[in-house]
Every structure is written in C-alpha cells, then in structure tokens.
C-alpha cells in the first residue's frame, strides 16, 4: 500500500511537470512578475546601488513571496475544473500523498526557477557575488514552505470565484514567519555574515510544513469537493 501510494504520487508529479512544460506560458508568468516587481523598486526608491543593497533582501523576498503566491491560484484550479481532482479523491490512493506530489511539482515549477533567477535580480540590486548563494538557498527553501502553506489556502478557495485576493488574505499571515527568517538569512548574506541560523529555522519550518501541510491540504480538497 505504501509503495503504491508513493508510485501514485510519483505519477502525479511527472504528470504535472509534463503538463506544465506543454503550457510554457504559465511557467514564465511568475518569473516575469518577479522581474517586474524587482524593477519597480529602483524606479520608486533610488538608482543608487548602495541604497538598493540595503533593501535588496527585503525586495527580493517580497517579490518572491508575491510571485509564488500568484502562481498558487493555478495549483488546483485546472484539475478541479476538469474533474481530475475528484478522481484523485475517489481513487482510493492517499489524497495526502497526491496533493503533496502536486505541491512538490508546483515548487519545482515556480520556487526553483525563482531561486535560480533571484541572484540575477540580486546582482542588479548591488548584491556582492559572494552573497549569491545566500540568496538562492533561502529562497529555494522558503518557496517550498510557501508552496506547502499556500496549498492549504488554494484548496480552501477552490470553488470560489475570483479567489485571488482571498487567497492572498488567507496565505500571507501564515507565511510571515517564512518571510521573516528568509529575508533575514538573505540580509545577513548580503552583509557578508553567516546566515546559517535563520536558514536552519527556515529548514525547520519546511520540515514542519512537509509533515503537516499536506494533511491539511488533503482535508481542504475534500471539503471543497463536497
């Protein structure tokens, strides 16, 4: 049973990845959004790199948070629309594993590309080369936590029309700890200090999220399908 749940989860993961690569437009959207938001800050505040470096960590994190939130709306929507999600719930396989696979796919498709792209944006904001891993690693971990937390909200708002703002309202307060420690890790990295402590706390949140969030998400999917 356990192995069949795992293999079902693997199939869902592969399916979601394949589907995403056939609709590349949706894949690029969060990245373009991230790029635009990070461009807004120098325009709004100042083109001086010294000043931008001060706020770089916050800018990158808020932009990454919003970009991954933007993509959350699509996490379950299409599958709920064409009945796939209902079939998952009826399949007899553990829905927890299946939604976990979907969440993992969502992270691979939005969080990882964001983490790869964030150092580029960081350079544009005057972050030194040495700090680039200090941008990439926390954003990779943090977006995973965000995907896990956000999946609950995405599942709860499934049947609701124009759920975007509501999803934001539900998810952002829960995501604040991730933002706090993630931005702190990046900020420490930009200043050339050790960012291990907040990174570990971020990792602890991911572990907690991996253990608990899929259970809540599966319950939320069932409620929304009722």
């Amino acid at each position, binding site marked *: 049973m356990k192995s069949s749940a795992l293999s079902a989860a693997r199939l869902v993961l592969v399916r979601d990845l394949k589907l995403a690569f056939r609709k590349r437009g949706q894949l690029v959207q969060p990245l373009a959004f991230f790029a635009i938001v990070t461009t807004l800050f120098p325009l709004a505040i100042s083109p001086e790199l010294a000043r931008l470096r001060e706020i770089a960590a916050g800018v990158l994190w808020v932009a990454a948070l919003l970009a991954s939130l933007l993509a959350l709306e699509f996490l379950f929507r299409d599958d709920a629309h064409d009945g796939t999600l209902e079939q998952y719930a009826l399949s007899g396989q553990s829905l927890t594993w299946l939604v976990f696979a979907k969440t993992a796919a969502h992270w691979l498709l939005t969080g990882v590309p964001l983490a790869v792209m964030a150092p580029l944006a960081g350079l544009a904001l005057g972050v030194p080369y040495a700090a680039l891993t200090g941008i990439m690693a926390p954003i990779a971990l943090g977006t995973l936590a965000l995907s896990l937390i956000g999946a609950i909200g995405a599942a709860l708002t499934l*049947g609701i029309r124009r*759920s975007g703002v509501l999803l934001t309202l539900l998810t952002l*307060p*829960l995501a604040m*700890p991730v933002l*706090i420690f993630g931005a702190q890790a990046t900020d420490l990295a930009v200043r050339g200090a050790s960012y291990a402590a907040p990174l570990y706390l971020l990792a602890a949140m991911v572990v907690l999220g991996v253990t608990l969030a899929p259970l*809540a998400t599966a319950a939320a999917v069932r*409620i*929304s399908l009722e």
Partner: protein
Amino acid sequence: MSWTWFHRLASPPCAYALASRLTPWFAWPAGVLIAGGLYGGLVLAPPDYQQGDDFRIIYVHAPSAWMSLMVYTTMAVSAAVGLIWRMKVAHAVAASCAAIGASFTVAALVTGSLWGRKMWGTYWEWDPRLTSELILLFLYLGYMGLRAAIDEVQRADRASALLAVVGIVNVPIIHYSVTWWNSLHQAPSVMKLGRPEIPAAMLVPLLMMLAGFTLLFAALLLVRMRAEILNRERTANWIREALIG
C-alpha cells in the same frame, strides 16, 4: 461517566435554550467586574512613578490583547470540535467568535497605538507585541473573508474550521518569529509589561478587568450564538415554539 450532556449540547434547540438561560449569569458579573475594575484602575490605583496617569490605558489594553488570543483559541477549539464530531452547534460557536475576536484585536491595537503615542512618541512602533497583534487581526479577517465567500453554510463551516485549526498551529510560530525578528533588528522597547513587583492597588483592578472581559466575551458569545442558531435553523419547527411559546 455519561456523555449525554455533550450530545444534548449538540442539538440546536437545547443549545439555544441553555444559551438564553446562561446569558444573564455571565452578563451581570461582567458588568459588575468591569465597572469595579474601571473605578479601581482609573480612580483608586496610584499613578505610575514613570508613566504617571498614562499607564491607566493598560486596564483596557491588556484585557483586550488577552481576549484577542483567547477568543482565537476558543474559535479554533470549537472549530476542531465541529470538524471532528460534525457538530453544527460547535460550528455556530466558532462562527460567532470571529467578529468578537476581531473587535478585541482592533481594541488592543488602537489602545496600544494610543499608549505608544505617549510612551514612544509615535502612534506605531514595530514592537513585536503590536506586530503579532496585527497579524492576528489579518488571521481573523482571513477567516471572516473565507466564511463570507462561501454561500453554502456547511461548506463554509468546514472550510473556515480547517483554516482556524491551521491558524492556531501557526499562532505560536508567528509570535516567536516576530519576537526574534524584532529583537535582532532593534533595541528592546522602553515598555516592559508584567513587572512582578506591581503593587496590589494596580494589580487587583487589572485582574478584575481580565475576569470582566472574559465574562463579557462569554455573554457576547452566547448572544451571537443564539442569533447564529436562529439564522441557521430558520426553517425548523422548534424555532416557532421557542420564540412564541
């Protein structure tokens, strides 16, 4: 140990009748305690040696802040009860909590900000307590927003109940991360609540206010719960009997 009382509570007519009977038992002591606490706090208690009379806002601020958390806990617990045992009344309790809790949170924020104006010279300081209070308000708003967005009562109940349970798991994490965030970013603020050597003339009114606010919440909750039950059961026969008979 018989659980019949628990099952009786689950029936809306029973819960409605019990709530009607209990309301004055909470409302009157609440009124007396709050009136006494206010008199003790605003008139009898000596002025603080540092803050003078300004500290007296604590008699509204601290109980509101305390209630904002307690109401959220009550909401989450009754939401969990409703989710696990599929009790309609528990969902009605959770739904009635949200607006009360959000009001206490707003009261705590407003009084905190007024106090901050006197103590810090600014209406808003990114103090960890105020910040986590603000996040708590967002949690309440999210809960109410989700309820309002779903038309079907049962689905709204279960969805918002799950959100409340997820929220209560997060509340301590949010609280501690905000505390650490702030202690790492700026010096500790001037205000230190909960000094152990607080004199009895100041402490007793504060405790009276805490007890009074808790009872006030219980009374408000019962009233709102009755309204919530009436609204949900508006097509049921027992309502006619309960209201006319």
